[in-house]
């Protein structure tokens, strides 16, 4: 089977989790994750792994360049991170963000053509190492973003004093805050390593560490915002609303980095790394 066929199947299996979350929210029920949505996600994830392996052999390089491959790989890391968090803490509300996001990313991957790449830059170890670090960083920071969003929604519910759907669906403020804080720490560490390997890669290719491309700037801006966030949490006891807002702001910079990298900076000699 070609990686395309695999990816269509992945989309179908991820749709189960996404639709379930959507329907449960609309019908105001409270079972965001059930054994069969977990099963569907696991099958989807296994197929997704196969799709990526297949795509790797087809492309002859690590499949992370261009929107098709980038979206697919990002969805894969997000699902993996979600499954790990879910097995450890049974945090169902995270599915609210991850299921639709994974579905949307795989849908994008299905709808976009594979970017034609013939770039010697893509050979070698920098591509898999740098992108793996970056993508797991993105996934962790997405979890932090989702935690912040859940916090803000739950805070609004509690402030309104009239419980609606999300009051029942989302866990306590404390739990959302802790999730966000942990995910920022993990994501920040990965992002730092990704930036370092990115700089080294750039030096190896262009002979200079800094090429002043927009994605470099946005990555550094995001990194600075996360430094500020972590320091504010540790030093001045920041948490809750303000931390959630800063985390969301920082994530937009991360999202820009990803989008620039995989949409605008299309493969060619001028881009990468």
């Amino acid at each position, binding site marked *: 089977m070609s990686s395309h066929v695999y990816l269509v199947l992945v989309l179908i299996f991820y749709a189960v989790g996404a639709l379930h979350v959507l329907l449960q929210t609309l019908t105001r029920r*409270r079972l965001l994750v059930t054994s069969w949505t977990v099963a569907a996600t696991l099958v989807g994830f296994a197929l997704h792994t196969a799709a990526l392996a297949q795509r790797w052999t087809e492309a002859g390089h690590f499949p992370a360049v261009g929107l098709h491959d980038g979206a697919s790989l990002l969805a894969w890391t997000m699902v993996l991170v979600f499954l790990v968090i879910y097995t450890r803490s049974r945090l169902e509300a995270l599915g609210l963000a991850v299921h639709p996001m994974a579905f949307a990313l795989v849908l994008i991957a299905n709808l976009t053509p594979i970017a034609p790449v013939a770039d010697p830059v893509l050979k070698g170890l920098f591509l898999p190492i740098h992108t793996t670090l970056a993508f797991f960083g993105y996934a962790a920071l997405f979890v932090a973003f989702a935690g912040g969003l859940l916090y803000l929604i739950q805070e609004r519910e509690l402030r309104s*004093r*009239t*419980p609606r759907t999300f009051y029942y669906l989302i866990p*306590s*403020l*404390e739990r959302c805050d*802790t999730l966000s804080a942990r995910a920022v720490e993990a994501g920040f560490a990965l992002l730092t390593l990704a930036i370092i390997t990115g700089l080294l890669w750039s030096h190896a290719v262009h002979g200079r560490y800094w090429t002043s491309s927009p994605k470099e700037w946005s990555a550094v801006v995001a990194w600075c915002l996360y430094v500020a966030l972590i320091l504010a949490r540790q030093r001045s*006891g*920041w948490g809750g609303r303000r931390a959630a807002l800063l985390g969301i702001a920082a994530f937009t910079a991360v999202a820009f980095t990803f989008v620039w990298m995989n949409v605008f900076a299309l493969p060619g000699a001028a881009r990468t790394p």
Partner: protein
Amino acid sequence: MIIVIGVSHRTAPLPVREALAFPRDQLRDALLRLRAETGAGEVMILSTCNRVELYARQDDPGAVDALESFLARYHARDGRELHAVVYRYADADAIRHAFRVAASLESMVIGEPQILGQVKEAYQAAEEAGTLGSALNALRNRSLAAAKRVRTETGIGRNAVSVSYVAVELARKIFGELKDKNVLLVGAGKMSELAARHLVRSGGRATVLGGRTFEKAAELAAALGGKAAPLESLRDELARTDIVISGTGSPGIVIHEADVESARAARRGRHARPLFLIDIAVPRDIDPGVRKIGGVFLYDLDDLKTVAEANLRERLKESAAAEALVEREVREFLDWQKAREVVPLLNELRRRAEEIRRHELEKARRRIGPLTAEQDEAIVAATTAIVNKLLHSPTVHLKEAARESDAPEQLSLIRKLLGL
């Protein structure tokens, strides 16, 4: 056949239910009288503030009337008056009713947890009085097991519907764990005590502020395992606390916006953790203006009631799942009961077959003459095997036939065929 008669909050007003209630100390006597006067094989009385019900195993179809007149006679009430408010169920309907009551589907507040304990106690009392037999005991086991399944497998018991529990649940939605959270009680009223007790049980640490009646505050603090402090230290205590329950009888505002602001400012340097204020006083104790302050959540009595109502609606949504589960369990119980009806017939059949086997075996032994031990054993084994194999399929089919609606006719036909 199991029969039930009774009154509940749905059929009778409180004064009537009160008049018909059986006090706990009279229950034993009432059970014994009920059995003696109605001639029922087994009886049980469930008497709570929302319902009074008499359960009996009685094969006579007129027994419901006997139960009803007993209820009137026991409490010296007019029978005709009572008849208008009493519901009567027999057989499958009675069983379904028993299951529904235990599962809290018939409760005033659907999903409330007390009824399960009350039903348990009622069966316990009947057991101790010696009026419980196999039929009611089977009903007890199956209905209680079903009620437990309903609690664990549906959301019918989730989400608090009483004001003090709602306060605790909200605290959990804000803080997650309540362990080591500081709880400040302003005023030592009944309702604040109830809410504080739930919080302390979950690991909270209580401080009680007392004004003019400091002794009362000290007393409550001791009961909650916390400390008491004078009302003047409000601002200091506010800066330390996570949850405030205010329920003074004061006519004016007790906790002003400035108090909360200064408390927030005092803790800003450290952890800007949320502050949850619960105002259960009427007139209110806490200035509603504090809602503007970041990280502060204020709920007054009306808000708590709004949440309780929303929770109740959530429960009602879950009740469909609970109804379906109870219905499945009732069906299973009825099938099981019917299958049990063939047990005497099966026993008889088996006994008869065994009798024939022994008889023929003796005859054979006499005819053949002395046998070695192995040979004798072989004959015994062979005859036993023949009987068992012959009886296997009738046994299975009889049990199946018992579930059919025309089971009695079928069973009597089988009896005739087998000459039993």
